[in-house]
C-alpha cells in the first residue's frame, strides 16, 4: 500500500521520526503502548507545568520590577547550627530528602512490575515518609521565617514586600502538591499491601481492574513534583 511505502522510505532516513508519523496516522492509539492512565497523567503534568511556569514568571517579573532591594537569600535562609551560621543548610537537606524520595519511588515502580508486593509496599511507604519529612521541614522553615525573621506575605524587615508574598505562595503551592502526593502514596501503598493489584480488584466507583501500572502513574507525579522543586530551589535560593 502507498502509505506503508511512504513509511518505509522515511524509516530508511530517519527511523525515529518515521515511527512517530506511523503511530499518529494509525488507528486506536496515537501513543502506542501508553496506557490511558499514563497518558492522562502526562497531559495533566503538562498543564501543571504551565501553572508553575506562570507562578515563576510572575515571581521573576515582580522581583525584577520592584524598586526596593530584594532580601539576600543566603542570609535569610541561613541556619545557626552548633554555634555556626550555615547558609542554605536546611534547604540543602530538604532537597536531599526530596531527591532521595524520587529514588525510592523509582525502585517501587520497578518492584511493582515484578509483583513484589511487600517490597513495593515498603518502598512506597518510605517515599511517603520522605515526602512527609520534606513537608515537615518546610513547616519548620516557614515558622522560622515568620517567627524569628518577621517575614509576612505583606512585608518583611529586610526589603521588598514581594519576597514574602512570592515565597509563601510558591513554596506553599509546591508543598500542597507534595502533601497531596503523600496522601496518594499511602492510598496506593494500602492497595498494594492488601493485594488489590494482584487480584485485579476494581477500585472505588469504577469497573476497571486494579493494576500495578498505577504505581508508575503515581511515580510520574512524584518525579514531576521533585523536578519542580529543583526550579524553585534555583530561583529562590540561588538567584
Amino acid at each position, binding site marked *: 500500500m*502507498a502509505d506503508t511505502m511512504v513509511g518505509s522510505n522515511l524509516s530508511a532516513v530517519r527511523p525515529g521520526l518515521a515511527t512517530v508519523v506511523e503511530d499518529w496516522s494509525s488507528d*486506536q492509539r496515537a501513543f502506542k503502548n501508553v496506557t490511558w492512565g499514563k497518558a492522562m497523567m502526562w497531559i495533566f503534568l503538562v498543564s501543571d507545568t504551565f501553572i508553575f511556569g506562570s507562578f515563576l514568571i510572575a515571581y521573576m517579573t515582580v522581583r525584577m520590577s520592584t524598586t526596593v532591594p530584594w532580601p539576600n537569600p543566603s542570609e535569610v535562609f541561613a541556619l545557626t547550627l552548633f554555634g555556626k551560621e550555615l547558609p542554605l543548610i536546611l534547604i540543602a537537606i530538604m532537597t536531599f530528602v526530596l531527591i532521595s524520595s524520587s529514588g525510592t519511588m523509582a525502585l517501587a515502580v520497578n518492584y511493582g512490575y515484578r509483583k513484589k508486593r511487600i517490597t513495593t509496599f515498603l518502598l512506597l511507604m518510605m517515599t511517603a515518609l520522605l515526602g512527609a519529612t520534606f513537608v515537615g521541614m518546610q513547616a519548620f522553615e516557614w515558622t522560622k521565617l515568620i517567627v524569628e525573621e518577621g517575614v509576612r506575605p505583606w512585608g518583611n524587615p529586610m526589603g521588598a*514586600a514581594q519576597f514574602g508574598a512570592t515565597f509563601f505562595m510558591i513554596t506553599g503551592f509546591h508543598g500542597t502538591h507534595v502533601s497531596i502526593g503523600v496522601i496518594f502514596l499511602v492510598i496506593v501503598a494500602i492497595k498494594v499491601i492488601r493485594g488489590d493489584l494482584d487480584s485485579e480488584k476494581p477500585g472505588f466507583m469504577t469497573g476497571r481492574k486494579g493494576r500495578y501500572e498505577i504505581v508508575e502513574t503515581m511515580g510520574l507525579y512524584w518525579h514531576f513534583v521533585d523536578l519542580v522543586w529543583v526550579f524553585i530551589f534555583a530561583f529562590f535560593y540561588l538567584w
Partner: protein
Amino acid sequence: MMSYVAHDETELIPPLEVEEEELYHPKTFIGKYIWCQDAKVIAIQYTITAMGVGLLALVLSGIMRLQLGFPNSFSFITPGAYLQFVTMHGMIMVVYLLTAIFLGGFGNYLIPLMVGARDMVFPYANMLSYWIYLAAVLLLVASLFVPGGSTGAGWTLYPPQAIVEGTPGAGLGIILMLLSLMLFIIGFTMGGLNYVVTVLQARTRGMTLMRLPLTIWGILMATILALLAFPALFVSAVMMLLDATLGTSFFMPAISVAGEMLDYQGGSPVLFQHLFWFFGHPEVYIVALPAFGIVSDLIAVNARKNIFGYRMMVWAILIIGGLSFVVWAHHMYVSGMNPYFGFFFATTTLIIAIPTALKVYNWVLTLWRGNIRFTVPMLFAIGFLVTFVNGGLTGLFLGNVPVDVPLSDTMFVVAHFHMVMAVAPIMVVFGGLYHWYPKVTGRMLDPTLGKIHFWVTFIGSYSIYFPMHYLGILGVPRRYYSIENISFIPESAHTLNVQITIAALIVGVVQLVFVYNLIRSYFKGEPAGPNPWEATTLEWQTADTPPRHGNFGPELPIVYRWAYDYSVPGAVLDYIPQNQPPDSLPARETDDNPQAPPS
C-alpha cells in the same frame, strides 16, 4: 498503484490493541441518575446547567440594554449595578455558558460516540468534573447575594480597581468570583484530560486521526488550549485573591483611594493583564474552535457534500490553536506596555487571519453546488458564517495598533466581539442542539418553531450589533452607565440606542420559544429514528436511540472510511456511514448498522 488520500476506504483493519474495559454499573438510584458516570448523562447535566446560567446572563443583558435605551427610567439600575451586570453577563457568557456547553456538553456527548468508544477513559473523574462545575456556578450565583453584591470590575477583572473600595463588589463579590473561577478550572481540568486522552488513545478500530469528524478536531484542540491557558487564569486568580485578602502586592502599586494611601506598594497591574490575556485570547478560540468543527459537520451533512479540503481544515485548526498563544497582547495596546510589543503582536494577529480565512473559503466551497437542505441546523450554520465573517473583518481593524487606539474601549469593540465570539458561536450552539437533539432524546425538535427562532435571532442580532459599530466610531464608550450630557455624542446615537434595545428585547424573548421547543418536543416531538439527517458519523449508527450506557452494541463499530462520504458517485444512497465496509467485504452481522443498504 493508488495515491494515498484521506478518505480512501480500507479493507485492512488492524486488530484490537487494547482489551475492552469493564464499565461501572451502579446499583443504586443515586448512582445511576445523580452520580452518573455515563458521559452522555454528564453532557446533559452540563448542557442544562450552562443554559440555566446562560438565561441569567441573557436577562442581565436585557436589563443593561433597558438602561442604555431608556436611561433613568428604571430606578433599580444604579451606575454600580450596571457595572455588576456587565461583569456577570460577560463572565457567564464566555466561561460558564460557552466553554462549558461546548466542551462539557457537546464534548462529553460526542467524543465517545464519534470516535467509537464506550465512554470517556476515566468516567469517575468525568463525573467529578460536572459536580465541581456545578459548585463553581453556585458560588458565582451566590456572589449576587452577598453584602456589596457581585463584582463590577468588568469580565477582565483588572486590578487595582477590582479589589479597591469604590468598585461595586470589591469585598466578598470579587473573592467569590475568583474562587468560583478556580473551581471551574479544577473541574474543567478533570473533564478536559478525559476528552484529550479519549480522542488520542481510545478510538475504535479503523478510526485514524485523519478520519475523525471535524467536530472532534475542534473540540480536541479547544480542550488542549484550555488545559494550557486556564493555568494562567488560575495563577492570576490565586495572586489576586492574596492581594485582596492577605494584603500582598502582586498586582497592586502604591495607590491612594479617596485621598488615602493604601497599604500596597510595588506590584504590577500590567503583569495581571499579561497573565489574564495569556488565558483570555486562547479562551476566544476555546469557544471558536468547537464552533468551527461543529459547523463544518453541519454544513457537510446538509449540503450532502464532503467537506472541502478536510486536511487543510485540520491543519488550520492546529495552526490557529498554536498561534492563539502568541497574540495575547493585542488586547493591551493601550495598557502602556512597550510599543515594540505592539508591532510584534499586531503581526501575529494578522497572520491568524490566514488560516481562519482559509476555513471560511472551505465552508463556502463546501456549500457551492451542494444539494442543500435548508434544515434548521443548516440555517444556523449559515448564520454563523455570516456573523463570523462580519466579526472577523472588524477584527482586522482592531488588530492594527493605530486603528485600535482610538477605537479601544468603545462600542466598536463590543460590536466586534459580540459578532465574532458571542453571536457566531451561539448560532453553532443552537445549530448543534437542533442537530443532535434527536439522538439525545429520540425525538425531533419542531422545525417551524426552529425557523421562527432562527430568523428572529439572526435578524435581531444583526439589528443589535450592526448599528453598534457606528456608535463606536462616534466614540460612544463601553461599560458606560449613561451617555447623556456628553457633548460630542449626537442625538442620533440616542435614537440608535432605543432601536438596539428594542431588538435586544425581542431577541431575548424569542429564546423562550426555543426553551419551549426543547421541553415540548421531549414529550410530543416527532419520533426521530436512528439517523434523521442521513449522516455518516458513528453516533448516528448506534443500535439504540438514544444510545444506551456503553453506546454501541455488543461489539464496537469498525471504521472503514472518513466521515464525509456524501453523494459518492455510484453508491446506493447519497451517504455511506463510516462503519460500512467496502463493497468487496461482506457486512459484518454484528455491525450496528441499521441503514446498511442491501448490497
